[in-house]
Every structure is written in C-alpha cells, then in structure tokens.
C-alpha cells in the first residue's frame, strides 16, 4: 500500500465549482486535491450555453441571483479577459398584426422593457451596455433573417465564454498554486473516523484501474449531477431538482446577434453566434435518468427548432452539426415549474447527519462560479484556521495577463492571422509561447483542425501544458474536431499527434481515436440530416471504409 497523503481539502468534481474551489483553496495556501472522474468540464460545466450572463430571466423570480451573477461576471472578465466575447441579443417583439397590437402584446412589450430597465442597473458590473429600443426596420437591418412581423425590438448585452477552457484554466492555476489535480480519478468510497468524520476518499484511477486512498481534513462534494450519488456514498442525502438542458450547434454563425424567441410553451429560447458556430438553446425539463446516460430526444430537437422557426424562418434549412445536453443542478423545490426554480446555490455541512468534515456545494450559475467557490473556501478556511483572503477575483488566470498583439505575432512568426487570432482568444498571453513552438518546429505550423483554425503547435501546447489525459480532452482545450467536418479530417492526425507526444503504440492511438470519433457521433445522431448526411458518409468513409477502425485492427 502506498503511504497515505494528507490534504487539507479534497474537492470531488472538476466542473466550474470544483476547479474554482481548488484554485481558491490552493491560492490561500491550503494543501488541496481535486478529483474528477472524467475530464474537467465534462458535465454541465461544459454543456451549458457558454455564456457569462447576468441572468435577466431570474429577475422575475430572484433578483439577488441576477445581481450576484452580474457582479461576479465582472470579476470573471477581469481575470480571464481573452476568453470572453460580447454577444448582443435582440429581443424581437412580434404581432400577428403589427399595426393593431393587442393589449397583451403591449403588456409584453412594456413589461419586458421594464425588466430590461432593471437589468440595466446591473449591466455596469459586467461592462454591459444598457438596452436599446429598436424599430422593426432597425431590427430587420441588423438581422435580415428575422421574420417580418415585428412592431419593435429590444437589445440586450451579454458575454460569451468557452466554458471548457474556463474550467481548464482554473485547474491549471490551482495546480500552479500547489494543488494536486487528478482527472480520470473516480471516488468510490470515503475514509471515516470513529465518530463518522469523513477523513478522506477511496479513489480508482479510471485509466489504470489502480486504487488509492487520500486523506483530507475536509472533503467537499461538487459533483454536480452526480452530487447525490457521491453524498449517498457517505451516507448522507443531497436533494436536487435535476433539469436537463439541450442545445443544438449549427455549422456557422447564422445570425449577427443573439435572437430570443418563445417556444411553443412560452419559454424563452435563443439562437446565438458563438465562436465559429451558432448555438440554439435550451430546454429545461426535469430529469430522472442516469446522468451518465444523457440522451437528446427527437422531441427536444423539434421543440427548439419549432421555437426558433417562429422568429427565424430559415432555421429549417440550416445545417445542424450536433446536439448536447447537460443537467442543471437546481436546488430541490416541490410544486414549481422548471423555469421558476431558483438558480441560487447552497452549501450543506453534513456534520449534523453524522458526517462531519463533509460538505456539498450545489446549484448556482456558471456566471457566479467564482463567488460560489469563494463562499465555500471561506467556510473551509475558517474550519482549518486559515485566514488568508480570497484573491481569485484579482489574480488573473493563465494567459489573462495581457491580450497579445495578433497582427504583430502573425507577422513576426509568419503564421496566418486567423490561426493566431483563435490562438490568442483561447490562450491570451500564452499565444506567444505557441508561436515559439511553431518557430522551433516548423512542421507544427500546419493547421490540424481547419474548421476551428487550430494549428499543430496549439494542440502540442495543450498536450504539454494543459493536462490532456485522453484524446477527447483535446477538443475541450482547443476545439479540435468541433467544426462542420466533425473530425473527418483532423481526428486521425490528432490521434497520431497524441500518440507521438505520449509515446503510445499504434493500437493504443486507435483506441483513443475510436473513442474520440464515437463521442462526437453520439451528439450528431439525433440530428443527422441534409448536407450533414453527406459529411457523415465522408467521415465514415475515412474512419471505417479506409481506416478500418472497426474491422481488422488487431487489438493488443
């Protein structure tokens, strides 16, 4: 048996809260261990709308959540400026007869504008602009694809983010401050003291199958959708109201702005440009199934398309790449509609249930992850007698020091500007290190993923510096395989590169490749149609007809 390692704090879960707590705790000097059963951001933290939004929706139910989200969203912008991008939204107000609006339509118009007026009060926290009233003609000019039945439009300012990178950067920063970050490590039991005190965890390394134990003075469960299951292993109960949220990804930026629409049940949904794609979101339905087996159904896809078609008639001709789903870990309430559930977070101390030393942080929002993490770390620090202040809102995440001069780098290293541009977006100040890699090894200058403008150099940088344990992790670091070709061209070269960097055998590389290709396909399956059918035939041709990944490959 390997000797036990003693930590101050063990964090179970590598989502935005887990990586956020690990960073905060490590920065305060706590000896911290973060355990994640897959990759960082592989649950809801990576399957959300990719927005640091203030949550105007929550103003109707919970003004405090909106305020907190706006304040924290301002801090997030400060610590990771390169990873945020502005997404202005248009809220189109339509009528069957725009000349003679009904009283209800007027009520919706003025009501929405009142809510936006309140939201404007919080916008300055996150460098958001106040809303603007638009005439129908102005809306049509800004967004020509919108259905011509408007009597007015309203604008609203929000921010997008790459949530995978946000988590990865938090984990990286935590590790730089001394935390131990172990992905693909699954907790399967707890070490208990004589009084029931939780003193550590039993862990299985998912890749080697090896078992280990780690001791910790405190253990916090931030397992998201898996939190109730983790809690039950410690004999305590955590209740939540899991809500499934489904998104669709389109092959390109379909609109100039985010556009809000109402679904058939009156819920607000949206289509928005996001990085190189557009995203349609989202559903919110109670989910009682296994969080490890989350599937998108035909109904959910149709619900979203029908809702968007309402304002964006051409959506049926759009090329849908894939679907994805996540589980909102909303706090338990009985008798409320899904939308009306609070996005408030809560910290549970399980001491009273006979598990002292064990905590759960549940709920909350991506936009306020930092303050949620801070709140918990305050509790932990106090318990552990640590009086260091939180610095996660002032100290930047890796790469956040300075936004690089993109044209300058492009010229100095003779790399195409779009490649350097995406590099700078994802890596901020570290883009220069990637350029240096490319200068030292000219073959790395080539593009690996043409759809997402990812160079070999960027992928190599991620493989070396960003804790990529499996090939599928690489797409969360630098979007390899996420574009329209869905890996038809880049998946196999990425697998070969991964094998080269890690010294894997050819058959090990093929397992990683098949795993990557298979994971991508699951999201395409529910929406395969039109042009994407032809793309899929090409994809299958490369990997199976030619590559024979399913066939004669000897598995060693």
């Amino acid at each position: 048996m390997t000797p036990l390692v003693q930590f101050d704090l063990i964090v179970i879960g590598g989502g935005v809260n887990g990586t956020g707590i690990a960073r905060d705790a490590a920065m305060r000097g706590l000896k911290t261990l973060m355990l994640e059963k897959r990759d960082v951001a592989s649950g809801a933290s990576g399957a959300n709308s990719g927005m640091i939004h203030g949550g105007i929706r929550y103003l109707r139910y919970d003004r405090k959540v909106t305020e907190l989200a706006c304040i924290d969203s301002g801090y997030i912008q400060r610590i990771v400026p390169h990873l945020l991008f502005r997404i202005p939204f248009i809220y189109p107000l339509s009528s069957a007869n725009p000349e003679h609006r009904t009283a209800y339509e007027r009520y919706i118009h003025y009501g929405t504008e009142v809510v936006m007026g309140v939201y404007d009060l919080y916008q300055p926290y996150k460098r958001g602009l106040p809303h603007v009233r638009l005439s129908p003609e102005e809306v049509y000019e800004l967004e020509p694809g919108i259905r011509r039945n408007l009597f007015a439009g309203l604008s609203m300012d929000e921010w997008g983010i790459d949530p995978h990178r946000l988590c990865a950067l938090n984990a990286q920063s935590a590790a730089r401050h001394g935390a131990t970050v172990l992905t693909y490590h699954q907790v399967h039991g707890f070490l208990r003291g004589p009084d029931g005190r939780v003193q550590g965890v039993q862990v299985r390394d998912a890749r080697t199958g090896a078992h280990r134990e780690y001791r910790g003075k405190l253990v916090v469960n931030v397992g998201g959708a898996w939190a109730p299951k983790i809690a039950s292993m410690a004999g305590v109960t955590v209740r939540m109201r899991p809500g499934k949220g489904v998104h669709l990804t389109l092959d390109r930026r379909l609109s100039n702005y985010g556009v809000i629409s109402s679904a058939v049940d009156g819920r607000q949904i949206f289509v928005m440009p996001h990085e190189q794609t557009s995203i349609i979101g989202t559903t919110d339905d109670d989910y009682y199934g296994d969080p490890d087996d989350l599937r998108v159904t035909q109904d959910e896809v149709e619900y979203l398309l029908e809702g968007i078609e309402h304002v964006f008639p051409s959506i049926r001709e759009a090329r849908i790449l894939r679907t994805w789903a996540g589980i909102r870990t909303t706090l338990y309430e009985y008798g409320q509609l899904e939308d009306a559930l609070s996005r408030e977070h809560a910290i549970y101390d399980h001491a009273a249930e006979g598990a002292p030393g064990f905590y759960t942080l549940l709920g909350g929002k991506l936009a306020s992850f930092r303050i949620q993490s801070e709140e918990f770390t305050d509790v932990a620090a106090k318990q552990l007698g640590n009086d260091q202040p939180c610095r996660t809102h002032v100290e930047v995440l890796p790469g956040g020091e300075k936004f690089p001069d993109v044209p300058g780098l492009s010229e100095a290293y003779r790399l195409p500007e779009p490649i350097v541009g995406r590099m700078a977006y994802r890596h901020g100040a570290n883009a220069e290190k990637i350029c240096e890699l490319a200068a030292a090894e000219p073959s790395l200058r080539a593009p690996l993923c043409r759809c997402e403008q990812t160079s070999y150099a960027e992928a190599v940088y991620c493989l070396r510096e960003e804790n990529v344990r499996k090939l599928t992790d690489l797409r969360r670091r630098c979007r390899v395989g996420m574009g329209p070709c869905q890996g038809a061209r880049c998946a196999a070269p990425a697998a070969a590169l991964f094998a080269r960097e890690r010294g894997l055998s050819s058959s090990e590389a093929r397992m990683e490749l098949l795993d990557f290709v298979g994971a991508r396909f699951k999201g395409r399956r529910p929406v395969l149609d039109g042009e994407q059918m032809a793309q899929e035939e090409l994809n299958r041709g490369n990997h199976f007809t030619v590559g024979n990944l399913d066939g004669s490959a000897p598995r060693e």
Partner: protein
Amino acid sequence: MSNPHDAVDVLVIGGGMAGAMAALSAARAGARVLVARRALGATAVSSGAVDVAPDPTAPPSDLQGQRLSPDQGAAAVARLHPTHPYGVLRDQLFRLGEALRFCASSLPDLFDAPGERNALLPTPMGTVKPTAMAQRAQRGADVAGLPESVLVVEFQALPSYDARMVAGGLEEAARALGRKLAAVPLTSKYFRTVEDPHRPVHELAAMLDADGAAEALASELKPQVPRGVQAVLFPPVLGRARAADVAARLSAALGLPCWEQLSVAPSVPGVRLQEALDRALRGAGVELAEGAVECRDLQAGSWVIGERPVAARAAVLATGKFLGGGIERAGRFRETVLGLPVFAGARRVGEEYVGDLLDERVESDQVAFRAGVRIDEALRPVRADGVPASPALFAAGSVIRGYDPASDKTGLGVAIFTGYLAGEAAAAASKKSQEAQGSMRPLTSSASS
C-alpha cells in the same frame, strides 16, 4: 436541334465507378452511351483500391481469415445479408470475377487482374484493410507479402500522414499474421519550404509527376535509408497522372521497391482512379455530359441534361448515396432523380426520426447508411408496390439499398459488379426496344428535324 447525341441507346446517370462500369459494359455490348454527371462523387474521394468483401464471419483480429478470395467473401456476404446487393444478385455472383477482370482491363494504367486472395494494405490509421484489387502503386504494400524490413516515410510538409502510426500498425498486423516484420519511420523534409510548411496532397502528387522529381526525392532520401531496409512505404501522393511511373522511378532510383499506403479523403489515388475511368470512357467512345439530370417521361425515355433534351432507350441510375447525391435526406429520405421509394434494411424509409435508424455506437452497422433504391434480380429499381419502375431502368452502385461500405467493406466491389451487370442489361434492353420498334419510329421527336 440536330445533335446526333440527343438520341442514345443507354443513358448512364452518374460517372463514378458504378456509372463508368455500366457505361463501359454497355458500350462493349455495342450500345451508344451517354454518361451524365453533376460533379465528382464518392469514387474520387475513395482509397483508390477496390474492396470486394472481407470474410463477414471472421473476427476482426483474424487477419488470416480476411485473406480469403473475394469470391468467397462476397458469397458469404450474400448468404448472411439477403438484402445486400450481393444477396439480391446471388444467382449472378459467379460473374463477380469476370466483372473485376473487366474493370482491371479497362483501367490498364492502374490495375492488374485481381489477386487470388484479399491483400492486407496499410492505412494511415495504422490498420490494414482487406482489399481485392489495388492500384499498381499500392498493391506491393500487402502486409502478408512485404519483406521483413520496411521503411515508412512521412513528409514534414504533410503532417496528416504519420509514419509512426503506420509503422506500428504494420508491425502489429504482421505479428497477428505470425510474420516477422520491422517497420522504421522516417521524416523527410523534401517538400518543405519555410514560408509554407504544409501542402495539400494533390499538390505534392503533381510535384512528383514532374520530370526528375522522383529521382530528386530518391537522392535526398538515399543517405537516410537505414541499412537492411528492403522496401519503402510512402504517403499516398506518388503522382496523380503517372502513379505507376512515379513508384517505379522511385524504386529504380532507390534500388528498393517503393509503395504507397491507402488514402483517406481528400485522396490522390481516388482522383487518379476517377481520371482513369474518364480516360477509359473516352477511349470507348462514351460521351460525357455535365449537368443536372431531369426525367421528363421515364417510360418514353425522355430526359433533360442541363438544358439539353436526350432520348434514351435504356438508363442506368448510378448516382451514389448521400455523398454522390443520389439519395438525400432533407427531413425525409428521397431518391433525387426519379423520386423512387427509398429503402433501408428491409423497410421503406421516409420521414421517420433518423435517430431510429442509427445505432449509438459510431462503428456499428448503420441502417440509415444502407438506404437506397430497392432492385429486383435484374437490377431494376422497383416502385413502392414492388413492380419495376420501368423495364429499361437499371441501378448500379451505392444508390442501391442494402450496403454500407463503411461497415461491410464492399464499396467499390459492389459498384463494379452492379455497374457491369446493369450496363449489360441496359444495352440488352435498348436493343430489345429497338427491335420492337423496328425502324418505324424516329428515336426522338427532335431527330426528325
């Protein structure tokens, strides 16, 4: 209009492997043939080698089992899958070898007659693939026949072809066959320039076509070739127009046999194959027309290609699947030229949820990708009631339902086999209608002018 081509015996729609085989076999039977196509299809992005059938019953790890004869493989597929074209046409399966030989002799620049057994050819993904008939530049790379010491070359200008992956895969495959084989990777900087470190495959191939290019590459490589190496394997860029020539010249200059691995898309060997097909078509006097095809009256044989009306006594539908454009799914499955009913597996498909026709595991046999038109034993596409749409309409290649080249690896084999038979059948149908009509009626209304 008095263009003599406005009246033809056989109209072939689609110019990939299936369409070209249909046109060539119809022309051989004496028919006047017109091939109409919109653009390049799946053949041009294929590996360039012809899969007929691996043993569908052999486990994936049994490489020896994959090395059976293509005839046996096809017969096994026919037994296991009655809806596969080999199954539907099982009574004519004895003519498969004849079809393959016809293809090889029509494309003398690329192919020799098919081998006795499937070759196991290296792919860029580190696997080997059972293949019945490979291009001359590819066939020597059969892992069952390669010498014991192989050099695998990669180009720095072509990072998507990784020599380590291929070398490791070759050694694994050789071990599975109980063979001794050592494969060493080597990176060549030959094509590299500082400004543009990577080049598309088609550009590299064109560069190697140039006079003296193969010799220059060989002299750059020669000092780097380790002692004892007995054969050299290259990425699939050994010339576009003069493939066999480039491989042979490299071999001569290096003093070692040189081969290329199979290609993924975009594919130089695929384009090479398509261009060889086009040459064969022209050589056989087949006219090639580009443009969208529309059917005015199927029973009367009245068609429009682009703007041009064409009368055809018989027609072959060889339009491919989703990639070729013969079948599409835009909300529902549709055969694009004639609106024929589409079948997948045993049932007709239309508007159902696509997810129901797709297994969650990407590597599974996917029913949605077996979609196509149903044919009878005479290769005639049938209507929903099972009756042939026309006595003079035939289908060939992946527009036919029941096979998925990705999972059953019968892609170009089916294209050749069905193309060969469909062309012959179309020529016969055309002759029959000509005899029935005698010389009483002009071929087209426009021909009377």
